[in-house]
């Protein structure tokens, strides 16, 4: 299972990929933007940055049980990213989880800086 995300900028494509990730996990319109969390990731190149970004969000969801639905990327260099992510704590009475996403993979992972397009396949 994977996704292709686009944006007006590469940063927006990264934000949209994150939205796509959470839309696989839970119905996005069931998630309220109640709290925010700053996320910072770094990597050697844009591909690894995408891998780390997705896996950072999976990690935060698993450990802190935070479901996100909006992502404001405040800084983006292609090797580092800073974002404010909005969402709320997982509440089993309101959120039916759809898919268990184990991880992003590097398999067929693509970052196209010209078309502002990213592609990632998840291990589910």
């Amino acid at each position, binding site marked *: *299972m994977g996704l292709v995300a686009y944006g007006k900028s590469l940063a927006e494509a990264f934000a949209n990929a994150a939205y796509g990730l959470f839309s696989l996990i839970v119905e996005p319109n069931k998630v309220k933007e109640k709290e925010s969390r700053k996320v910072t990731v770094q990597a*050697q*190149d844009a*591909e*690894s940055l995408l*891998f*780390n970004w997705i*896996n950072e969000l999976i*990690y935060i969801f*698993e*450990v802190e*049980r935070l479901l996100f639905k909006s992502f404001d990327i405040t800084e983006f260099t292609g090797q580092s990213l800073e974002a404010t992510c909005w969402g709320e704590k*997982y509440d*089993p009475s309101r959120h*039916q*989880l*759809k*898919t*268990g996403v*184990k*991880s*992003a*993979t*590097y*398999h*067929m*992972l693509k970052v196209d800086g010209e078309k502002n397009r990213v592609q990632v*396949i998840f*291990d*589910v």
Partner: protein
Amino acid sequence: MPEKWTGKLEKVDDYRWRIPKSYKSGMRVDGLIYASEAMLDDIRQDRAAEQVANVAFLPGIIGYSLAMPDIHWGYGFPIGGVAAMRVSDGVISPGGVGFDINCGVRMLRTNLLEAEIHPKIKQLMDALYKNVPSGLGSEGKIRLRHGEIDQVLVKGARWAVEKGFGHREELETTEEHGEMAGADPSKVSGRAKERGVPQLGTLGSGNHFLEVAVVDQIYEKDTAKTMGIDQIGQVMLLVHCGSRGLGYQVADDYISVMVNFIKEHNIQLPDRQLAYAPLNSPQGQAYLAAMKCAANYAWANRQCITHWVRESFCQVFGKSEKEAGLELIYDVCHNIAKIEEHDLNGRKANLCVHRKGATRAFPAGHPDVPAKYARIGQPVFIPGDMGRLSYVLVGTEQAMKESFGSTCHGAGRVKSRAAAKRALTGQEVLKELESKGITIKTGNLKDLAEEASEAYKDITSVVNVAHNAGISRIVARTKPIGVVKG
């Protein structure tokens, strides 16, 4: 949809197909796929065979880049893949183990017959569902003291037994005794431990399950009897799960380490997910030590779950463990890399055998096979999909000779999870299974469709190839009567 694979496959015999190393520049050895002619169409539907060829690029690979008959498209490595590397100058790749490190299966026997448990099957499934935490977002009921996770990572199943989850004898009939030596918790990130602590003793989701099954065929009477499989109609219990978030995090952490290694050394690979480091490098050694921790966690996990399965069973039928005859036949893992001794042109050599969706299948008399099974060989369990049959096999000399002591691990997907969901709803799958007399418990009906029979290859054709090729022998077959789907 992935494009069809039209690469070269040379017929070796009825069950073996070779991808010659001339197929692609960079292959160090040939690829070899175990399959019947009838299975080739399915195999060519996606890029799994290309992945077999890609694995042949890895330094130090010996013999063939192998694919078991349940081969399907994975990430980087194919699922159903086996690759053995020389320890001296070869590499280790986290992608060759997979995200769910030591995902595996164990089978328990009982003294009960289907007729005896039938009136209470619903109660049994309710008890199993209640007592074994399962499903997305579930947390376990085990509370670890601060730092105790490190004990779990070093001792594996023995940690669980020492805590009162099961019996010491069960360690004898668990691959590696449920405790791989050389596990070093300092090589496991704090993040992995954070994910692992609340999830110990949980089944997880996806294709993980608990199954109540009934023996429906016995092919080798004496071999089966040695395992405690005595008669048709006898009730068996299966547990299929792995290392949960801890294993996924170890995989993530070390894939990143290996990707950096590849980049620093300017190594070109057909797929970054194949990223590796030499076994004899600090990165390779660190991954191996961390992977062993995750493997041990998975064995502790299955051991705890086994205890609750046993408790539930005894409770529902009002029998003691002894009366119920609940014994662990064996526990096998099917996502792992191991340093093993194999014959290489008449000489013993230490190899790092990656098994990703493949099961160890050591023969009778091998020192790593428990004394109890020294005469018959190591038991292997091949669970089918939810509505279908599962098989019990044993390892063979032939496996030792040609597949580094490995065989298949399951049915193998033919439909992606998403495609399976489009084709059938969870409700339809539930109805179909109930009409076959199978009781299902799940917290996530929607995802039931992902595991529909139609999503998998026919398990019988998969094990028949493994049997006919001689890399394992079919001993018995079971059919499900109740499933808790994670």
